[in-house]
Each structure stands twice: as C-alpha cells, then as structure tokens.
C-alpha cells in the first residue's frame, strides 16, 4: 500500500503545486488551452464546413450509384437488375436512365420551332452564350420515383414534369436561349453527336425528335444537382425512353454498345457515414461490390459507378483550397497562441528559478527536478487539453454561426449541441501539435534552468537576455522589409500605381510581407517602448497625479528592461486585433459592394432575347428609371477577342447630375476619375472608349492612343450571312475597373465599355445619342428605394415575369437582406471574429500574467519604499506611471502595424478572391477608426488594470516579511 502511495505521490504533490502556484499555472494553462482552442477550433470548423458542404452535395444529388450491364443493356435487363438491387435495405429506389457522359460524347441540340427553318436556333460552341447541353432519357414514371422526386423537389418547375407522349422538360437556360415557353410545340429537336470509338476514328451521328411539346421548364437553384451532379453541370433536356426507341435508333444503338443506359440507384444516406466523405465513399464501394456479386449470381455481369466518388475529387480540391485559405487567415492567432504557450513555459520556469535552486540544495538531482516540472506540465496539459477542446468547439461554432464581424446568427444558437462531439482528429492533432511543442520547448528551457549554477539562481540579479533578432538588428531589417511590402501594396491599392509585379513577387509580398511586418514591427516596438517614455518622461512627471512619485519614476525609466516582453506582447496582439476589426468590416462592406456591382441597381432584369424592353419596363409600377446594358462579343481589337459592353451614357449622365442615376457607381470604378467625370468624358467623345487595365496590358496601349475595333455582324438571320465591320481610331479615354451590372471580369476575360456607338455599330445605322438600346440586361431603379418590402419585391418580380422573353430578375435589397441573415461563405468574418477575440484575450492574459510576475519580483523594492514612508497609493502610481507611456506608445504602434498588415492581408484576399467569388472588383480596405481607437484604448486600460491588480499584492504585503527577503 505504502509502495503504491509512494508511486502515486507525484499526483497529489503535482496538483497541490499547481494550485499553490496559481500564477505560473495560469500562465502555462492559458498558453496550452489557447493553442488547443485555435488548432482544434479551426480543424473542427473545417471539418464541419466540409461535412456540411458534402452533405449538401450528396443530398442534392439525384442518385449516388449507377449500374451498367456489360452485355445486352436492354431496358428489360435493367428492370431485372432493379429487382435484385431493391432487395437490399440500403436502397431507397432505382430507375433506368439513358444519358451520355458529356465528357465523352458531345451532344448538340438544334431546335426548329416551326419546322420551316425560320426559327432554327443552335448553339455555337465558340460563342460566349454557349450552352453545354445533354439529353436525358427516362421512363414515364420517373416523376414518381425517389430519384425523380429528388430532382423535382430541388428545382423550381414551371409547368409539369411529364415526358410521356413526346413531351420534354427543359432547363430555364435552354428555354431562354431558344425562346421557349411551357406548352410550346417544337417541330423538332435535332441531336448530333460525335464520339471516338475506343481506339477508332471519330464518328458522327445525327437524329431528331419531332413534334415535341414543352411540358415543363425547370430552374436550378444554386447548389442543386441534376444527373451529372453539381459540378460542370450541363443543361439537361428530359425525354421519354420511348423517344429513344422510336425516334433515335442510332443513339439507342450507340447507347446499347457504349453503356449509355444505366440503372440509377438512390441509397438510404442514413445507413452510410455521410459525415465523412472518404468513409462514405468506401462504404458505397463495398455496397457496389456486394450488388455486383449478387448480380453475377443471377448471371448478369454489371459494373457500378460511384457518383459520390465523382463528386469527391473536385469537392476535396475545393475543401483543400478553402482549408489553406482558412489556415492563412487563422495563422496569426495560431502563431500568437504558440507564442503565448512559449511565454507561459518561460514565465512558469522563470518563476520557479529560485525553487529549482533550493531543490538542488536539498539534494534533488536534475532528473528529479525535471520530472516534477514534467509532471506539472503534463497535468496542466491534460486540463488545458480538455478546456481548449471545449473552447475549440465553441470557437468553431462561433465561426460557423457568424453572419458578420462580431455578429452571431441567433437562429444558429441552437445548433451548438450538434458541435458537442468528439472529433478524434481535432482532438489528437491539436494535442500532438501543442503537446509536441510543449514537450520540446519545456524540456529545452527546463534543462537550461536546471543546469544553471545554483549560486546564479539563488542570488540571481535579473539581466535581460536579448533575442537573436534584436541582437543582430534583424528586427529592423524585418520591419523595413515588411514596411516596403506595405508601401508597394498601398501604392497599388490606394494610388492605383501599376508596378507590374509578376505572380511570384505578388505571392512573396502577400505571403511573407504580413509576417515580416508583424514580427519585425512587434520587435521594433520594444525599442520604441523604451525610447518614447524616455523622451516623454517630462510630460508625465509634470502631471499632478505623479508629482509625488516623480523622482522614483524618473530613475526607473532609465533602468527598466523588464518591460520588453510586455511591449512585444501588446504590439503583437493589438496589431492582430486591428487587423481582425478592419478586415472584418472590410469583408462586410466588400460583400455589399460585390452585390452592388453584380446587380448594378435596385433590380437587374435579364431577357432571353435581345430587344428594346424600355417600354415594357417603364410601364411597371415601382420602376423609376432604367438603364440598358448592351454586350457585343466576340469583338476583335488588334487580334485579341474582347467583350464590349455599353449603355445609354447621356441619359445616365443627366440623371447622375440630378443625383438620380440608375447604376450604383463606385468611386473606384474609373482610375483617376470620378464616375461623373468619366461619364462626362464618354459623353463628350462618342468615339471614345474606356478600357480595363487588363486590356491596356494586353493591347499594350494607353490613354490618348487609338484602337481599331473589328467585329462580325449577322446581316441575314435566315441565311446566317454575316458581315465584318470595323471602326478605326477609337480613342482610349481612360482605364476603368468595373461598372454596375457585372461589367468587367478583369481576371477572366476583359470587357471594354464602348458608349453610344454600340447600337450604331451593330445595327449599322445612325441613331440619336439618346435613342433606346437593344439589350438583354436592364438595370432598374425603383421608386421604393432601400425600404422596399418583400411584398413589393414579389409584386414587381411577377410583373417583370410577364414581359416576353423574361429570364430572371434579381432584387438588390433581397440579396442584401439574405446576406445579413446567412452565415458568410467559408467563415471569413467568423475567423476574423475569432482572431479578434483570441488576440484581445491573449493580450489581457499575457499582460496580466507578466505584470503579476514583474510585481512579484519587485515586491521587495516596493516593501522598502513602503518601509521608508511611501503610501499604498504611491506604490500604485509608481507601478502604473512606469507603464503608462510604454503602454500607450505600444498601443498606438500596434494599431499602426495592424493597419499595415490589414493592407497586406487584403492582397492575400485578392489572390484568393477568385475561388471566393469576390474577385471581380477590388476589395477596398475600410478602416473603422473609431473601433480601432476604442480597441487600442481598452487594451491599454486592460494592461494598466492588470498592472494595478498585480501591484495590489505588492502594496498590501506584510512589510516585516517582505523587507527581510533578500
């Protein structure tokens, strides 16, 4: 028994030691917990995001598995296979489908509405409005199957889903392209398909389905998936299998040979691990093998395809990309938490320096002392691990429920319970990272402390060990490198200077610039925190509050080295808090700016056919004014293909002068010109053009130079005859960034605005400047303004819907309201919220801990001061006065560094902007100066309060004890 108690005595001894040394235990525990929180939180969030996205993908898929019969893939055999498959209780439903994989066979659909050749329309693979189409053959009962229901329930459908009797169901895009409506009769739908037989020559087949009635038009909502899943989804036309049998014998034959028909299988997701994509994929593969074996027993050789697997690769790529971005965004707080961890270790060891020496005197050897430190570290790690993981869950929930910077979606509050689960990877990954670093660092530091000579530690006079970077002035070098990258970014982002940096330079600046500025700036902050108080001491010492302690303060300013770490921590943390706040607000504003740019006005209305809809739109109640946006493509300018966009500039200019412009023109829409100046310039120069900076670089041209524009215009719709026209000496009036209504795609294909002449060129007529323009896109300014109600939006939308060839209408206010209610994509603002909370918490925790340790060290000094007559209030004044200027200086410096990092991080956002869907326009940094000032002020107050609280112990101590401690 005694043996056992002896063996286990380390545990109560360790726990007692932890509780009796609260300060150092707190320092280390907070470092561990914060590290675990950040790493597990980010992982849990990524995992939740991945699971949620995957569940959405799987839920939206019409079916997960398909089976092909290798020999004689007849409809009858597919039904026979269906009987076998449906015996499995993991299967919900099956249905035979005939469809070509669009990656193997190109299918084009040519619609001849009237059959007389007058309304033939086809897609042109080279054109900008090319539709990727695919026919899908189903049985008449398809709408009743779970697969059909899944598809129908996830789509908005106009008319009915009926493919019997040569009916067809088409997508909204196809309907718009071919100007089709429900119940329209199509004389024929031609299908030509080409494929390369395995190892053979390219073969072409043609067929058609005649006398087809459009029974329904479906419209995918964002994220929905058809037969081919949500990625690279072609526009589908649903036909009956009968059409394949009767009208398309060649296609049927090809289907028979190339396994074009298959049995679609809808599985019961609840019986699979849908929360883990990889596991679910494996389970589906096992299911397929099981069915294959069953079919083989029935004499049927089949091959299965896993639709989930097809979705998995692009999904995984996207997930990896998002994870990288999330990690980059969270990198500062990861570094911060690890710094806090190392800081905690050092503070903890620093505090036990004397204790270690005493133990050595008592006869403890290095191993025994190390084991005690190790045991305490281990117990603290276990406690920190549990606390950190719980906080990590909370952090992940905060990120996921964020609908803006420091804003939580209250509807999401109830979801917290679903986060309360054990994610083994998050749990162990965070433990490995934090535990590993903790072990390495504490071992290294503990050895250093233990092996130092006893006499040094017992009677140690604290000297300041300067870090490698500062010793070699590398902090200044780092800071200036960071500063130059900020200068480059600011020159480009604010002053619009194009430095023509290539990708690698940009990556270098955006990838390393923030860290150089952050770390270098924080280290330089130490120098500043020493220099400024010395320069401003006169100011402080003349303040009446500090008059009675001015002599002591004056002497301490010169000899203080112990606040280096405090200064470093304040700059390090406050800069991140500033970054998080500024980028959080920027992100919210950017989301609004994107929608303003994409929609362009209160409403954006799109039509399937190019025409003049001015009258139709102005007749609608609630419409104040409209602006047509014309597009013309492809257009050749000096051998490069561009899209040209244009609108009624005279009208818009006149409205703008009255403050009633239709478009939402951002101040940065044009380089060096306000929107008013730019429109005026365009109005004054009918032959002028504004080009994008992308176009300027490609065309190697500049403002004031001329261009020659060449384009092909169809002059006879029946014969398809075209004519090449050109206009010369079009002057480049300026550079534009973007224009309302989604005009310009600087990173994909450039557009140029060509004002006034657009219609004249296309129609080859001379038309008055203020003549209405034919277009497919219109921006509408509403009389209701921002206060428009949902009812009014619905009412206006239904009226737009009545206009012939109507395709879609988007309300800006509805989009903005949805934006306010939905968690943001990829948790950017959530991560920034977490950055903010963690950095402020880290600032307060570390300054409190460090202040407490500093005050502990100076207990004797304060006791002596008290013994010679100093009042308690004077002790407080000394403690606060010593830190006041330093804290304020570092708070200002930290905010300035934060501003610099904000600009650099903005560049990083720009690099990732394409995948995040916000790359069309620049992300303008918005500085909430008031918030930043409040944060700086509050943090400073927090540090001073921490100092005062720590000084309390020193001021109230028992003088008889304190004065005799050497």
């Amino acid at each position: 028994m005694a043996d056992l108690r002896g063996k286990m005595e380390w545990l109560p001894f360790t726990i007692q030691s932890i509780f009796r040394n609260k300060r150092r235990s707190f320092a280390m525990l907070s470092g561990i917990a914060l590290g675990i929180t950040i790493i597990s939180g980010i992982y849990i969030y990524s995992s939740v995001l991945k699971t949620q996205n995957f569940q959405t993908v799987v839920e939206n898929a019409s079916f997960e598995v398909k089976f092909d019969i290798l020999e004689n893939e007849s409809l009858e055999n597919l039904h026979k296979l269906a009987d076998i498959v449906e015996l499995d209780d993991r299967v919900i439903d099956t249905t035979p489908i005939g469809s070509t994989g669009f990656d193997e066979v190109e299918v084009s659909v040519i619609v001849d509405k009237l059959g007389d050749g007058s309304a033939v329309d086809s897609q042109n693979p080279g054109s900008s409005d090319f539709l990727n189409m695919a026919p899908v053959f189903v049985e008449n009962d398809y709408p009743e199957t779970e697969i059909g229901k899944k598809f129908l329930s996830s789509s908005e459908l106009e008319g009915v889903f009926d493919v019997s009797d040569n009916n067809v169901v088409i997508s909204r895009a196809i309907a718009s392209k071919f100007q089709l409506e429900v119940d329209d009769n199509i004389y024929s739908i031609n299908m030509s398909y080409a494929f390369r037989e395995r190892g053979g020559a390219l073969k072409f087949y043609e067929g058609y389905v005649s006398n087809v009635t459009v029974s329904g038009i479906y419209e995918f909502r964002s994220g929905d998936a058809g037969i081919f899943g949500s990625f690279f989804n072609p526009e589908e036309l649903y036909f009956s299998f009968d059409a394949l049998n009767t009208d398309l014998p060649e296609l049927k034959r090809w289907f028979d040979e190339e396994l074009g028909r298959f049995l679609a299988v809808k599985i019961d997701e609840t019986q699979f691990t849908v929360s883990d994509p990889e596991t679910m994929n494996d389970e589906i593969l096992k299911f397929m093998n099981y069915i294959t074996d069953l079919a083989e027993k029935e004499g049927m050789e089949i091959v299965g395809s896993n639709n989930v697997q097809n979705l998995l690769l692009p999904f995984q790529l996207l997930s990896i990309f998002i994870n990288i971005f999330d990690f980059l965004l969270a990198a500062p707080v990861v570094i911060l938490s690890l710094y806090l961890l190392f800081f905690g270790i050092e503070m903890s060891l620093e505090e036990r320096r004397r204790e270690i020496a005493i133990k050595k005197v008592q006869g403890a050897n290095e191993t025994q002392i190390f084991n005690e430190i190790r045991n305490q570290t281990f117990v603290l790690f276990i406690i920190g691990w549990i606390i950190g993981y719980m906080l990590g869950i909370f952090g992940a929930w905060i990120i996921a429920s964020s609908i803006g910077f420091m804003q939580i979606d209250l509807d999401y509050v109830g979801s917290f319970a679903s986060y309360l689960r054990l994610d083994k990877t998050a749990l162990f990954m965070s433990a490995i990272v934090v535990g590993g670093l903790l072990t390495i660092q504490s071992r290294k530091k503990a050895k250093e402390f233990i092996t130092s000579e006893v006499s040094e530690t017992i009677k140690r006079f604290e000297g300041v060990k300067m870090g490698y970077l500062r010793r070699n002035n590398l902090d200044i070098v780092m800071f200036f490198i960071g500063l130059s990258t900020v200068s480059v970014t600011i020159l480009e982002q604010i002053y619009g200077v194009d430095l023509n940096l290539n990708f690698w330079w940009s990556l270098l600046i955006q990838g390393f610039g923030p860290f150089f500025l952050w770390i270098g700036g924080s280290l330089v902050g130490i120098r500043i925190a020493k220099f400024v108080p010395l320069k401003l001491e006169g100011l402080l010492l003349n303040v009446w509050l500090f008059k009675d302690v001015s002599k002591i303060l004056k002497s301490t300013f010169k000899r203080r080295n112990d606040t280096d770490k405090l200064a470093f921590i304040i700059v390090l943390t406050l800069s991140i808090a500033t970054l998080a706040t500024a980028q959080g607000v920027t992100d919210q504003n950017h989301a609004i700016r994107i929608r303003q740019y994409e929609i362009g006005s209160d409403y954006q209305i799109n039509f399937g056919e190019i025409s003049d809809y001015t009258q139709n739109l102005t007749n609608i109640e609630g419409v104040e004014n409209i602006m047509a946006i014309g597009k013309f493509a492809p257009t050749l300018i000096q051998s490069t293909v561009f899209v040209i966009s244009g609108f009624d500039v005279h009208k818009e200019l006149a409205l703008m002068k009255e403050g009633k412009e239709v478009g939402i023109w951002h101040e940065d829409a044009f380089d060096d010109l306000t929107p008013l100046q730019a429109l005026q310039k365009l109005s004054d120069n009918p032959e002028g053009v504004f080009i994008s900076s992308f176009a300027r670089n490609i065309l190697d041209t500049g403002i004031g130079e001329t261009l020659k524009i060449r384009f092909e215009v169809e002059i006879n719709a029946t014969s398809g005859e075209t004519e090449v026209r050109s206009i010369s000496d079009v002057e480049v009036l300026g550079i534009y960034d973007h224009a309302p209504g989604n005009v310009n795609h600087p990173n994909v294909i450039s557009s140029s605005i060509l004002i006034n002449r657009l219609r004249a060129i296309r129609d080859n007529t001379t038309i008055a400047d203020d003549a209405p323009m034919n277009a497919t896109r219109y921006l509408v300014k509403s009389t209701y303004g921002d206060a428009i109600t949902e009812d009014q939006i619905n009412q206006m939308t239904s009226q737009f819907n009545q206009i012939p060839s109507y395709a879609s209408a988007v309300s800006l206010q509805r989009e903005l309201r949805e934006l306010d209610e939905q968690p943001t994509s990829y948790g950017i603002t959530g991560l920034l919220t977490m950055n903010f909370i963690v950095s402020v918490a880290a600032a307060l925790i570390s300054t409190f801990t460090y202040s407490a340790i500093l005050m502990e060290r100076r207990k004797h000094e304060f006791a002596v001061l008290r013994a010679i007559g100093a009042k308690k209030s004077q002790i407080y004044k000394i403690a606060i006065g010593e830190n006041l200027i330093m804290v304020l200086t570092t708070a200002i410096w930290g905010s300035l560094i934060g501003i610099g990092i904000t600009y650099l991080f903005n560049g990083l956002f720009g690099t990732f902007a394409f995948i995040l869907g916000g790359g069309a326009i620049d992300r303008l940094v918005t500085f909430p100066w008031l918030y930043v000032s409040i944060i700086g002020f509050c943090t400073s107050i927090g540090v001073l309060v921490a100092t005062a609280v720590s000084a309390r112990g020193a001021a109230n101590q028992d003088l008889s004890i304190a004065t005799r401690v050497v």
Partner: protein
Amino acid sequence: MFNQQDIDEYEGPLLKSTGVYVIYKGKEGASNVVALRGINLEINRGDFLAIVGPSGSGKSSLLRCIGGLQHPTAGAINYYGRDITQVSESDLVPFRRSTVGFVFQEGNLIESLSGFQNVVRTLRYSGVGYSQSRSRATEILSLLGLKSRMHDIPKRLSGGERQRVAIARALANNPKIILADEPTGNIDYANSENVMGIFKDLHRDLETSFLVVTHSNHLATFANKKLELRDGRFTGQHTGNFDVNSLGGSRSVIISESGNLTLPPELLGMVLEYGNLWEFQAEEQNNQARIIAKPSIQEKLPDNCPVCKQPIIGRTQNCRSCGAKLLN
C-alpha cells in the same frame, strides 16, 4: 562519489580547503571583485566553527563554495580527501544529500509546500521510502518543536518557525556538516536562543560538524573555533571574550601552513609606515615564543617632498600633502 565505507575509513579532516579564490567579473568595464583570496580551512568531525567578519568580507561566497553551490575560481575543497571542485554537477548531488545540510538566513523554504512537505521532499530526493520519509520528517520536526505547526505553509509560520523548518530540512539526511549562513539573522533573541540550543544539542549528541557564518556575538560564543574573515582572507582567530564589534581585543593572527601571515587592518596600517621590509627574530622567554619584528632598512626620509616641496613631518612612506611616494 562518496560511499559510506570510504567515509568511515577516512582518517583525515572532514573538510580541507586549499588556496580557494573567488573572483567575480566586473560588469561593463568595472574592475573584477576578488571575494576570496586563497582561503585555507580545515574542519574536523565534531568541530563547531564560526566565521565572523564585516559585510562584503566574502563569508557567504566561502560558504557557497564549501557547500558545493558555487565553483571557486581557483583552489581545492576536499571532503574526506576528495575535491568537490573537480566533479560534475551530477556527482555533487549525492554529496549534497549525505554530507552537507544548508541553513540559510532567509530559510529558503519552498513557499508552496508545507513545512512537513519541505522536509519530506528532501528525504524523498535522497531515495528514502514514502513511509520512512514521512515518519522521519515528523520525528525531526517534533524534535524541533514544530509538531503542531508542521502542516502550515511557510507564509503562515513565524520567522523562528520557518528557520526551524529550514534546520529540520538541513538535518533530515543526517549530514556530516551543517553550513549555516546567518541562521539567526532574521529571528528574535528568544528564537535565536532556541536555534542555537538545537545546534548545540545536535553538535553534542550527533557529533555533527557546524560551520556558521554570523554577525552575532551570541551565536559565535557557541563555537569552539572562531575565524575572522576580511577582504577575502582569514585575518585572525578569536578566543576568550569575544565581541564581533571589537575584534582587536580577542584576535590572534594566523600563520598559514604555507607560511603566510595576514595582519589585521589596524596593525597593517601602523607597520606599513615603516616600509614593507621587516626583520623577524624569534626567541623563547619564560617557555613562551616571542617574535621581534623591526624594519629591515631604515631609509632616511628627505626633508622635503621631491614633488610638492612640502616639509616631511614624522615617519611616513608617502607625502602627507601630495601623496607622492617617499621611499623606494
């Protein structure tokens, strides 16, 4: 390093230090500080030695070196004939466990542990079993009158109680020698009496050797040998009536084994006026040894200082006006 058999068989002194120097490097251009200048010291089993001297004379440095807490700059410190300055830190551990026990002026207790645990840890570090260490700690703390207070943390103990815990901790492993640095410096007279009584009892009953650094007359009177340390050298040994504030009355100067004689400061000031070359003559008179010393060459002093030309008054090595050296 030290096994019991070797210790038992060893017949020489318990501790012998030879030519111990400690030099602290001056900071930022300041000159070095020589804390100990060739200290020779011998302590036998059962000795109770007190070292007295003014502040800054090197007492604590000497104690730390002797206790193996600090490496001297030069010299040897032998315990049972083995030099502890030549062994590694890990080899010093068994030495600290079994040979020496420290009592510091401020106690140096681990503040987070109770008095009892402070003693138990010492025993546990030495490999004493769980139960044995607890009973031994109880026994020794009871012996020192701390039975009722032993589970309090040091903060709740009085100065005397803290010091008694420190003594208990130092005695826990039955060390051969207790090194005490101003053990009664922080406690009142009654508690000092207590502590000294404990020391005396231990010295008498267990034959533990003591080396005590002190400023206290009272404490020093307990010692059977009192050495005076000044400027890093032993300048005298005291016997009889002893007053740390007036050491001249009881001092005997020491001639070291190597023949060095360190004169006390007041004597040194006087003799130096007659130059630094002296003739010694030893003789026996009435069965007692006598040494007669006189300056070897009585150089004639000039009438006036060759530098400031002021007249030379009296016998002096340096000009009293300008400080110029008058004799070669």
